[in-house]
């Protein structure tokens, strides 16, 4: 069992008797409200995609499906194509299978492809990724509290919130579970 908050895109859970893969995970919290996890999930038996919400501390029955290491190669228009670095097998997934992974996907990226009964159904991102900021408004170098945030676009086009002191072209570490900025890094 895991807390809902521990699950992220690519995690697989059993709800009732049915297996689901989480495609998108969004964390919300305000004041005394329970922290909440909003998921887009795919039912692995019938392929239905649905939205669902949980308290962050709800216990979820996580299940371990087969996972293989894979490297993202390219998008051919219909499919996102990955390759298994050991067997060089090609693995094809549709965009709806990728969910939150699309926010960070770039050529050569290493991740894990999740299989359900021999069919690839999702990818699981590394917990942390490092990405370069391609655009953000100039910030305040003097502000080091990190509490005041601004929008920043990373090289995949995805936007996240970063502290004011973070500048364009810098590299940052991001927690893919919450899509939150972690720290600046030097590359």
């Amino acid at each position, binding site marked *: 069992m895991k807390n809902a908050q521990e699950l992220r895109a690519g995690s697989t859970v059993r709800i009732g008797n049915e297996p689901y893969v989480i495609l998108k995970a969004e964390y919300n919290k305000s*004041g005394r409200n*329970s922290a909440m996890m909003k998921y887009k999930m795919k039912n692995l038996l019938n392929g239905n995609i649905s939205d669902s919400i949980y308290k962050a501390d709800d216990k979820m029955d996580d299940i371990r499906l087969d996972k293989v290491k894979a490297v993202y190669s390219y998008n051919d228009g219909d499919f996102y194509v990955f390759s298994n670095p050991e067997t060089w097998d090609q693995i094809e997934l549709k965009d709806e299978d990728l969910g939150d992974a699309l926010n960070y996907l770039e050529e050569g990226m290493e991740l894990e492809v999740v299989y359900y009964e021999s069919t690839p159904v999702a990818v699981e991102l590394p917990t942390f990724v490092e990405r370069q900021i391609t655009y953000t408004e100039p910030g305040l170098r003097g502000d080091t509290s990190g509490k005041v945030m601004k929008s920043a676009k990373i090289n995949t086009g995805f936007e996240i919130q970063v502290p004011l002191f973070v500048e364009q072209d810098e590299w940052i570490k991001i927690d893919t579970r919450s899509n939150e900025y972690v720290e600046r890094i030097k590359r």
Partner: protein
Amino acid sequence: MLIGSLDIFCEIIDNYGDIGVVYRLAKEMKKIHGDEVKIRVVLNRLDEFLKINKKAKNIECQEIDDIIYMTEDFLAKNVCTFSPANVIIEAFGCNVLGEYLEKAKEQSSILINLEYLSGEEWIEDVHLMESQMGAPKLKKYFFMPGFTEKTGGVIVDSLFLERKNKVLSNKEIYLEKYLKGLDYKDMLLGTVFSYEKNFFPLVDALINNGKQNCLLILGEKSQISFLELFKKIDVVKLDDETYNIKNITIKFMPFLEQEEYEELINIVDYNFVRGEDSFIRALLTGKPFVWHIYLQEELAHMDKIEGFIDRFKEVLKKEDIDFLEEYTKLLKDYNFRESNSFEIGSENFNDFFKNFEEIKKFSEKYSEFIISKCNLIDKLNRFILKY
């Protein structure tokens, strides 16, 4: 779907807000459905309930006004003989007893997670969203109270509105009931129900507002706050409960039941309130108010204050209200702190009293909006009945 029975679960953390909401919800559902619906309320502890309801006793299970109130311990001891209600509400994200929930998955129809109130925009996105449980019958939904039509609204109970009308129609009787012995005529009357605070800025503004003022101080934390202040300024003690500072009479009130508190806030001119339940009652009075929100770590409570202010302005912005910025600044300044303490804050009440009549006019208007568009019990009831 007809509501045959309703079980409401509440884990009281502290203070009176959580039980206040749940008690109000249970009474109103009873009033709407009468004998057709069996209502049970399960509480983790009774201390706060005993204070707000004089009929309550310190026993594990009791019936008051056709509603059964029981403790979690009592439920746990007797769960094997319980049939879960067909409608279940878990208030404020509390966890329902596991054994009860397993039965409910087989037998009940709807489980509603009734959350805390918030004015933040994202609340609309998750209101009435399903929380899949994989149960054969039971479906769970998140119900998000808020200040817009697309949210769950706030508890607008008819019992409160009836009481408000009754009190306003017989104002003299109620003034005499609560202010006996005070020369309250021609006084600007206000209540203060707060967490720990330095009220010097308020007293200072009252001294300068050109009126005779009367402050009614409710709750231990508010009274302690004033006693702290009295150590630093010249106060004349008139009796054990009454003090005088220049043009201000300050009266410490005894602990009031929920219904008495509602009577009082409807006869005064303005209310300083705290938490969630008394804040909503203040809105419903249509009188000027100042909200002391429950403080959160990392100033998370400021998101709620700002969310509310944004929603408040949305309703009132069509008017050209030049004082609104000053008033909402006061609401923010009053709450902008990391912890409740007696440290002096940056709030300035002078504009509040200077613009008092205008604020009153728009508070009345906002109250009408809340009553007509944001009735939580009406929304909740309709959601269940349509299900």
